[in-house]
């Protein structure tokens, strides 16, 4: 067991425990804060995968914007009643069954993969960040998703602003 495996296990534990708390705690603000812990754990995984850019982006976008939006929305819609009563609906056992089934199913698929699961990552080229930039702008690669992403964001912004608009 080397250092990276220890870090992986620790961050996996952080991710899973806080994710479980996200879906179980009654106080929604706490759920949002646990979500932040999960997201931070995922950022550590990205670092282990040597995708430093994505790790930092994870913190900037998820923690800096998305999680804050969640906390904000909870503060906006908070009814005190909601913190005390159970937060799950009546068919939660079904939900548990379905998600357990999904887990088993995915695990089954993962086991049946054609390529070797024990493969070890090849050493990363020095300029992977530059490669990402090149991939995003080169017409042979992903310039279309790059531009479409901005259209998606535009649609989201217009839609969200339109919905949030007070029609009085």
């Amino acid at each position, binding site marked *: 067991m080397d250092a990276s495996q220890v*870090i992986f296990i620790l961050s996996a534990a952080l991710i899973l425990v806080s994710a479980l708390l996200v879906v179980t705690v009654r106080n929604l603000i706490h759920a949002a804060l646990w979500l932040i812990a999960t997201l931070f754990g995922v950022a*550590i995984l990205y*670092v282990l995968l040597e995708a*430093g*850019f994505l*790790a930092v*982006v994870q913190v*900037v*976008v998820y923690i*800096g*914007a*998305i999680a*804050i*939006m969640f906390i*904000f*929305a909870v*503060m*906006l819609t*908070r009814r*005190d009643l909601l913190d005390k009563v159970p937060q799950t609906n009546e068919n939660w056992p079904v939900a548990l069954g379905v998600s357990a089934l999904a887990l088993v199913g995915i695990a089954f698929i993962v086991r049946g993969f054609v390529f070797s699961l024990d493969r070890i990552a090849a050493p990363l080229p020095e300029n992977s*960040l*530059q490669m*990402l*930039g*090149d991939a*995003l*702008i*080169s*017409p*042979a690669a992903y*310039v279309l998703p*790059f*531009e479409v*992403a*901005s*259209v998606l*964001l*535009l649609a*989201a*912004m*217009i839609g*969200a*602003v*339109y919905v*949030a*608009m*007070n029609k009085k």
Partner: protein
Amino acid sequence: MQNPWMYVGLFLLVGVVIPIAPILFSALIAPKKPNPIKQSTYECGIETVGESWVQFKAQYYVFALVFLVFDVETVFLFPWAMALNAQNPVVMPAFVAVEGIIFILILLAGLAFTWRKGMLEWV
């Protein structure tokens, strides 16, 4: 130093521990004589009415929303800015710049829409 992120991890750990130290130290030596008046919510001496949660302007929300979209946009722009300076460019720099400008203009259209609809006003 093999991996810079190892250093960052250590730094984050120490950076969180060091602010905890004075709080713990203070908790050890500071007096502790709580009473209900001392612990009541501070509202300039007037007694608190109702809960701390009060209705507030949803307008705050619209700004957070526009912020969210633009924040994600900047993430796309950082790799673009680096590609603009590529040593052996796959694409002509001017073409790269134009791609980024199209990207920005599409999003500025969203800002213009919000502006025109009067959602940026603080009423």
